[in-house]
């Protein structure tokens, strides 16, 4: 069987189901609302695996699923050398979000990464610790800031409600996903003018490492043909 990994919850799951339905591949959850089991109709030889979106990159890289739907952000943050492990097949046109660096709106003196670096140096001198940036995208943020030459910062882990960390005084700045920017504004934060780390959207990926058995080749060919 060709295993297709799909986010197990919410809007991302529903949109994914709709996207495949327009390609005559019907995905559905079976059993009760709480049971993570799924069915595939309209195509033979494909099975549905419902997973948390954050685990799909890892499962693709391990070769335990052949195809998977998840965001560019998660693939690039979780998989080093991701191009060697997974191949993007289709951008799906939903789940669009930007990974950005944001600081308090009241910091009128900080608009660019260059400003952030200078503010970080002064902050460390004044407070004796590095300027803290809350995020769950540790690798992407670190690489981005290193390329930009920003020093004297520290990443603090934040797995949720990241926009609140500045007001709560557990971080001075954040790096997070935003789609409309409303949550940022509501929390008195602004995006740096050159603070776009990554444009992300839901994408269908193929694992470069998962073995496709001989009897499954026809099914894989058929899936790929339906995408185009």
């Amino acid at each position: 069987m060709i295993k297709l990994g799909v986010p197990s919850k919410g809007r991302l799951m529903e949109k994914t189901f709709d996207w495949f339905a327009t390609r005559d591949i019907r995905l559905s959850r079976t059993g009760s609302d709480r049971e993570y089991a799924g069915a595939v109709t309209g195509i033979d030889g494909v099975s549905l695996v419902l997973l948390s979106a954050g685990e799909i990159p890892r499962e693709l890289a391990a070769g335990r699923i052949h195809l998977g739907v998840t965001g560019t952000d998660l693939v690039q943050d979780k998989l080093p050398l991701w191009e060697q492990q997974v191949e993007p097949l289709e951008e799906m046109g939903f789940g669009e979000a930007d990974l950005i660096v944001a600081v308090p709106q009241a910091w009128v003196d900080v608009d660019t990464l260059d400003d952030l670096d200078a503010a970080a140096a002064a902050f460390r001198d004044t407070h004796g610790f590095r300027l803290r940036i809350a995020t769950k995208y540790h690798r992407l943020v670190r690489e981005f800031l290193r390329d930009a030459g920003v020093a004297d910062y520290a990443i603090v882990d934040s797995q949720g409600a990241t926009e609140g960390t500045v007001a709560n005084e557990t971080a001075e700045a954040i790096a997070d996903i935003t789609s409309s920017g409303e949550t940022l504004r509501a929390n008195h934060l602004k995006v740096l003018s050159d603070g776009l780390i990554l444009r992300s959207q839901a994408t269908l990926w193929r694992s470069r490492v998962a073995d496709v058995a001989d009897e499954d080749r026809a099914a894989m060919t058929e899936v790929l043909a339906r995408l185009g």
Partner: protein
Amino acid sequence: MITREGRAKAAKLRDRFEAAGAQVVEPPMLQSAELLLDLYGEDIRARAYVTSDALRGEQMLRPDFTVPVVQMHMAHGADPARYTYAGEVFRRQEEDPDRASEFLQVGFEVFDRTDPAAADAEVFALMAEAVAGLNLRAATGDIGILTAAVNGLRTSEARRAALLRHIWRPRRFRALLDRFAGRAPVPASRTALLANPQPRLGAAPLIGVRTEAEIEARISALHADAAAKPISAAEMELLDTLMGVRETVPFALSQLRDLTVDMPSISGAVEGLAARADALVARGVDVDTLDFEASYGRTSMEYYDGFVFGFYAAGRADLPAVVSGGRYDALTRRLGKGAEIPAVGAVLRPGLLAELEAGA
């Protein structure tokens, strides 16, 4: 992969360094993550394995020996002192799966205030002897010369400090330099900020730890910076000439001495290089064929602040440096809680050495 041959080689080299007057030390494999993060910043997380327990908090598998050896010396070392060690270091490899994430290092470190040039030469010569016969290419440099040049720039103290802070990030250093020389455009947002007499009027409520006073201080600093005269074209040219020096030691020295006529601030550092060259000759090193690059060592982790050097396998660009070392006086200051001592050291990789010897 660590091999038996590599381990045997490591033991032999450590014996050799012990015979050269060093005391054998065994720094712990687990290091305080807090200290390493404070020294190196967030980049260390991309290079070191982090682990933790409930009692000690975050720990790192040692990414090198220098920091624990300096710490140990500053806490209760003799003065002067020489140390040697051999053991595993651990490096995360996220970009190149062919690079080892666990390998052996053998090192030799000198803490001695009497004659820094002689100590530099001692460490270099010892390493050169250890790898003799393998046809390695030696590269040398001196971060102290560039530092002296920046300190001598006719510009504001704040600009000099900003440049010094980024000596180890050549791209960022260049971007700052271009801006201070008026060669890069000022971002529109900054021009607008500086033109606004009351930039904080109507701004959103202030949240977080950074205070109003800090924001005001930075705005004042930006006004002062905007009023500062650009670094002159003549000074920029001198700095570019300096950073472009790439010659054998005698020719490099004569080029640098020529530069001191217009850049008197580097003359002390250049005479330091001359003294080191003499000390190297006294140790039997052929400096006439030894390469010197003024920009060498600027992309390493930021603790070398004077002499820097490395040995590389010719024709094996796939291999990292077999030997790398340098002077790190500032690190002893950072870890010394008020005390400091001139220090220089180097590490070599016995695994690579064994591999090259087997192939030779």
